[in-house]
């Protein structure tokens, strides 16, 4: 039986189904987790009527969204309008294919995994832009313009940070990066201060950029509901909106996975014991969800940044600092 | 630059206005000035020079006298002084100049007064319907208005 499962086409198919299921379940239940988390922070219970403690809320929401008609407003570019939700969901699915959940649990062990993730991760901004542009709504157009400039601005410090990590690790294979961090949390890249004393700063920059790239609060310029109603999604209803919504969470999963792999030692156990195999996957998920929880926590604490201070933050603080860390890492590596 | 009551009284008397000093505890204002309707801009300019701020512009429909009264309230930020300038226009042809050039804040108040009383403020930059529906042809605060 196990042998049958390891045949390449079957394996690929299994992983495909697994990743789609993982993404869908995450997207659905992270919405619930977000609402529950918001409830906790705001001292209310959150959704708690559908099922035990609201456990069926995502199902109810999904049925509601699916049952709604997808309206294409007159005057829109109907092809692009329909295509945008499809395009927004594809990149996170593709990215998850190269993310190693455990030592051997990876759909496709690519040598250029890091590059793959970043090249596909950048597509999702295009989908938002097209969706906003095609809906022929003034709020949506403002929003899509914002999304593009925001993503361009934050791609740069993020990639600079990733280049720093690339210099430290010397490989683009995500599995290899994790393997280098084996053995206790002091081996994690986050705490490798002897390689680069700015490593925690690098992590913070990466995290901020990830928030901005995934359009999460306090950088949620794409939606900015108190300014732009619903931003790029203003004209979307039913599952069209639902897919955008799910893609946001899928992107968070990808971003947090990447942060886990690059900085927090991926599937490695922080204390050295209980490692390997399915334990590894469990550690990975624990770290992943801790990061996701932080993302949720941040959203429900801060107000939204103003669009221009957002760009200022990127160009005036993040890019110089990440350049400095890049330089320092280079110097340190040459000396050591 | 706190204005004095005497100076204001002198200024308004020079404007062919009837000036009446009131007890604040009984009336809620210190100075009541009645001016002819063509003098309201000059009256507003006096208030402006003395540092007053516009409080409200409103009307009262005195149907028995067949007149409409337009009341301008001014209050002062730093001195506890309130001035009321009032003028009367005939009901048949309620028209008087706007003071929105002196106090831009009067713009909205005058639009509102136009809506409610049908008083026309000549020279007003934007005399569009304001609070009432765009197709309203009535002036609800006129005493002869029947809904």
């Amino acid at each position, binding site marked *: 039986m196990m042998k049958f499962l390891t045949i390449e086409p079957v394996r690929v198919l299994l992983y495909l189904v697994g990743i789609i299921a993982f993404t869908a379940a995450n997207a659905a239940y992270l919405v619930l987790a977000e609402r529950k988390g918001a409830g906790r922070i705001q001292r209310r219970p959150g959704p708690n009527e559908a099922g035990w403690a609201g456990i069926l809320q995502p199902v109810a929401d999904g049925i509601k969204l699916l049952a709604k008609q997808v309206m294409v407003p007159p005057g829109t570019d109907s092809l692009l309008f329909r295509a945008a939700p499809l395009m927004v969901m594809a990149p996170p699915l593709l990215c998850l294919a190269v993310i190693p959940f455990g030592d051997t649990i990876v759909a496709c062990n690519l040598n250029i995994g890091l590059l793959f993730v970043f090249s596909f991760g950048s597509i999702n901004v295009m989908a938002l832009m097209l969706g906003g542009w095609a809906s022929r709504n*003034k709020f949506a157009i403002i929003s899509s313009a914002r999304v593009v400039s925001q993503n361009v601005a934050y791609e740069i410090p993020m990639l600079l940070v990733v280049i720093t990590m690339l210099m430290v690790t010397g490989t683009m294979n995500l599995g290899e990066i994790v393997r280098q961090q084996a053995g206790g949390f002091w081996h994690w890249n986050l705490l490798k201060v002897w390689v680069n004393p700015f490593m925690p700063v690098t992590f913070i920059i990466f995290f901020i950029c990830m928030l901005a790239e995934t359009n999460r609060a306090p950088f949620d310029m794409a939606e900015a509901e*108190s300014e732009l109603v619903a931003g790029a999604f203003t004209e979307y209803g039913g599952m069209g909106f639902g897919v955008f919504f799910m893609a946001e969470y899928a992107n968070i999963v990808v971003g947090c996975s990447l942060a886990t792999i690059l900085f927090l030692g991926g599937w490695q156990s922080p204390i050295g014991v209980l490692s390997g195999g399915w334990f590894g996957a469990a550690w990975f998920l624990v770290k992943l969800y801790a990061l996701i929880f932080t993302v949720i926590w941040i959203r429900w604490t801060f107000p939204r940044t103003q*669009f221009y201070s957002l760009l200022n933050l990127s160009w005036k603080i993040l890019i110089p600092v990440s350049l400095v860390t890049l330089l320092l890492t280079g110097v340190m590596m040459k000396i050591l | 630059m706190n204005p004095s009551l005497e100076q204001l009284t002198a200024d308004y008397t020079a404007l062919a206005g009837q000036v009446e000093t009131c007890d604040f505890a009984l009336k*809620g204002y210190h100075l009541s000035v009645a001016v002819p309707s063509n003098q309201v801009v000059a009256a507003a300019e006096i208030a402006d020079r003395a540092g007053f701020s516009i409080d409200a512009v409103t009307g*009262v429909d005195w149907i028995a006298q067949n007149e409409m009264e337009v009341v301008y309230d001014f209050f002062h930020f730093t001195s506890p002084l309130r001035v009321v300038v009032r003028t009367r226009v005939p009901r048949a042809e309620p028209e008087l100049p706007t003071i929105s050039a002196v106090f*831009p804040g009067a713009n*909205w108040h005058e639009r509102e007064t136009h809506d409610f009383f049908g008083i026309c403020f000549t020279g007003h930059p934007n005399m569009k319907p*304001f609070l009432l529906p765009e197709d309203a042809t009535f002036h609800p605060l006129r005493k002869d208005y029947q809904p």
Partner: protein
Amino acid sequence: MNVTKETLHLATAGDAPQETFVLNLGPQHPAAHGVLRVLMTMDGEWIQRAEPIIGYIHRMHEKMGENRTWAKFLPNTSRIDYLSAMHYTHAFVGAVERAAKIEVPLRAEYARVITSELNRISSHMVWWGALLLDLGGFTPILYAFDDREKILDLLEALCGARLTYCYYRFGGLYNDVDDAFLKGTRDFVKHMQPRLKMYRDLVTDNIILRKRLEEIGPISAELCRKYGATGPVIRGSGVAYDVRRAEPYSVYPKLDFKIPVYHECDSMARYMVRMDEMEQSLRIIDQALDQIPAGPFIGKVPRVLKLPVGETCYAVEAARGRFMVRIVSDGKEIPYRVKLRTPSFSNLSLYEEASRGMILPDALAMMGSLDLVIPDIDR
């Protein structure tokens, strides 16, 4: 960071044709707090002209005043600005008392001050939460409502209503303040001090909020004067104008409180004024609770109230600024004219001039800092 076209060195001049579009913000927009519509002529994200269009919930309170007796108009006054209903009722009963020369017992005056200031705090809390909501912070409004709920519970136990109190009557109050209320208010004052510190730590000191509000939406004192803006707007522009001091009413002269003034003229100054006002209101309540005497809660009022011929004005400091009632009586049982001068009306009227050249998120932050209540504008 006040971003204008000039600071960004964008090409404003030049021969290139500039394309503008009209953004119809509202009447149903999340930042419009009700049914305010702002017609914005935009050049990209820059506002060339923002024209507020109002009247969507106009109810003609002034006409309603002309066809019912003085007492019957009383419930209407709490519905003009539902967030500071006490102040509005105060102004109307004050005007009638001033015209009819009705004596108000001291206990009633103190109770009015206590309830008014409680109402001011609750109103500022709604503003605080709503402003943060405008800026994309979702949690503060729930913390604020948690505390506001305590005020509403107190006032509900006192007069039976949570929002449209109609608690003041000509010559006094609807019913007496009981010991449970006085004790509950004392507890609330104690409870509120650490909460205000929490507000400060969570929001006021937050760097994102400061970046959103500091140097955004400058409104000079001269602009305020030309438009008649009052309340926290004018106090945030460096003018210590407060009706409680300028035209003292009720027992405010006997109480010791400061008028918070900030000279920065920006949205942050208006924000800070309101935050400080909450503290000052707590101080006022504390003193009033110490000083409230025993005695009757309503004075002698004629059964059929007929006001002498003439006109009377009465102004109070509502949560949003100066609220004035002008009543004209022709000696009958019903008013001849009731004019309601509302603060939000004047505060919004300067928006068109003040928002010129701002970008959309800043303009909305500034609109939030003006603390608009749309029924108060439309009446």
